[in-house]
């Protein structure tokens, strides 16, 4: 019987041929924890009687969610992580290195066919590299740190076939917001989302990361894509490791298949306070905004910063708007400096903050005031998400966010693209 991508990866990592709904214990290739989840994992590790980590080379800890630390409580948790990493010989990405979902792929340790778990829900991002990667909690992380394994129920697969080419001014972010709006926030619960079709093949790797990143926002366990020459060219920048791509069998079984033609897609916006409350930008155009954010694990990559700079070049952001930019990693930050992107953004009025999760999660770096509207390239607009439950978060592409920062109102970015 044919297998999906995820069935094949779970088969190769459990030593048996598995299909949807089987329960297996599988070995993991790489494990990641960030500063919101690692401290609890360290505690669970110790409570489990753990002494050493199964393979320190296959583990990374990342301080990105509250980096640099905003208060002594967080500082104590960061200290705990640094001490644990040093004692166990684990690589720790400290403040300024970037968002876990950017620095882990940049490490060259994850690629086609690998199985990765991370104590962060957006670990599904690495599915863009044809890996099965999924978010877990701290106790699962602790168990894997000790054993190098985790138990999985093999998920069914929801196949999204995207035909056509995205029109000018419409990006990967618009596509994934549209798909989430269509299937809703629990439309793919427990399933693996497999994205395919020429619209996906046509995306850059940066765009593919954006799509895979938000699979969790439809409830999915993973967001997977096939590997192609773009995948291998991207990986070659970071590693000489050889990976074996995993493709679905022609007779693989899918729980659901939906087909889309993206040729006439318009820029999309997710309205407060639900990620699936999605509409074309025209429906909310004109809504005043007070804060704009470009960054996060969804859209803080070089392509995103380039698009924003293209729109903001030579202009000033609206006087009633704060624009916060957080490059996804130090590497991206440096590249953006070399290309003059950072200068363009700062000249336009942007405040550039430390590479990391920035204001997305509401701990520091841009908590909005009561009643304010924020437009952000992040992946969640839950009430209170950015640290104030009386603020309103809209989600959109970097182009829409940049255009909105210029006008002070939610704006169709196509007005600013030549």
């Amino acid at each position, binding site marked *: 019987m044919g297998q999906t991508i995820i069935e094949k990866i779970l088969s190769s990592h459990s030593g048996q041929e598995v299909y949807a709904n089987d329960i297996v214990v599988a070995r993991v290739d790489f494990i990641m924890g960030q500063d919101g989840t690692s401290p609890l994992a360290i505690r669970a590790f110790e409570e489990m009687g753990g002494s050493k980590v199964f393979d320190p080379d296959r583990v990374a800890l990342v301080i990105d969610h509250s980096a640099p630390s905003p208060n002594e*409580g967080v500082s104590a948790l960061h200290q705990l992580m640094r001490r644990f990493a040093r004692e166990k010989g684990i690589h720790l990405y400290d403040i300024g290195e970037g968002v876990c979902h950017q620095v882990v792929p940049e490490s060259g340790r994850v690629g086609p066919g690998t199985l990765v778990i991370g104590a*962060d829900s957006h670990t599904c991002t690495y599915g863009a590299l044809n890996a099965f990667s999924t*978010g877990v*909690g701290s106790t699962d992380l602790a168990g894997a740190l*000790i054993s190098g394994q985790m138990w999985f129920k093999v998920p069914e697969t929801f196949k999204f076939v995207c035909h056509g080419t995205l029109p000018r001014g419409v990006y990967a972010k618009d596509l994934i917001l549209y798909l989430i709006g269509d299937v809703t926030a629990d439309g793919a619960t427990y399933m693996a989302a497999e994205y395919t079709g020429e619209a996906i093949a046509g995306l850059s790797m940066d765009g593919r990361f954006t799509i895979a990143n938000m699979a969790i926002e439809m409830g999915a366990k993973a967001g997977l894509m096939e590997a192609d020459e773009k995948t291998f060219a991207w990986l070659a920048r970071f590693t000489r490791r050889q990976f074996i791509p995993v493709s679905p069998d022609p007779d693989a079984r899918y729980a659901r298949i939906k087909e889309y033609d993206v040729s006439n897609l318009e820029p999309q916006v997710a309205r407060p306070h639900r990620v699936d409350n999605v509409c074309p930008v025209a429906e909310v155009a004109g809504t005043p905004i007070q804060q704009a954010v470009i960054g996060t694990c969804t859209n803080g990559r070089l392509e995103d910063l380039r698009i924003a700079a293209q729109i903001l070049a030579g202009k000033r952001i609206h006087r009633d708007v704060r624009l916060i930019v957080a490059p996804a990693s130090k590497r991206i930050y440096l590249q953006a400096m070399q290309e003059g992107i950072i200068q363009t953004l700062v000249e336009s009025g942007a405040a550039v903050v430390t590479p990391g999760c920035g204001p997305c999660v509401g701990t520091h770096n841009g908590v909005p005031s009561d009643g304010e509207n924020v437009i952000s390239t992040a992946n969640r607009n839950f009430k209170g*998400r950015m640290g104030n*439950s009386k603020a309103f978060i809209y989600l959109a592409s970097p182009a829409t966010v940049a255009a909105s920062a210029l006008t002070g109102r939610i704006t169709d970015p196509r007005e600013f693209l030549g």
Partner: protein
Amino acid sequence: MLLQGKAHKFGNDVNTDYIISGKYKFKTLDMQELAKHVMEDLDPDFYRKINAGDFIVAGRNFGCGSSREQAPLAIKHARISAVLAKSFARIFYRNAINTGLPVVECDTDQIDPGDELVVDLSTGVITNKTKGLTIAAKPLPPVMIKILNDGGLVAHFRKYGGFNFD
């Protein structure tokens, strides 16, 4: 195991930021402290309304969002004995079992705020004493029953030194 208490009802898509806001979870590992803020953005007085053993009852997709294990732990430390919902988000569901918080998938339309419930985890039967009716829960996968019976994943590892589902 028999659990008994009153229902506190919420709607669909109760996300992890509602359960425990990110602005608190990064500060401390003291779950008793976090528990005081449980569900705060949906109901600022919620923590004060809880009597030990009460239930959170919700609609679809409970626990969607973050992987933060502080979410089930804050609920548990607020002395809620179980969460009953029509469906759960995947990571929350695992985290709840791993940390020993019972989660029960069932038709929650037959439960109103304030209803007195008895939940039998071994049979999966929920008795709504206020309405005089019973509701059948969807059974947990055997692996999860094993972890829950062991007292969570930490206790499972302490007992076996790794995974043991034979």
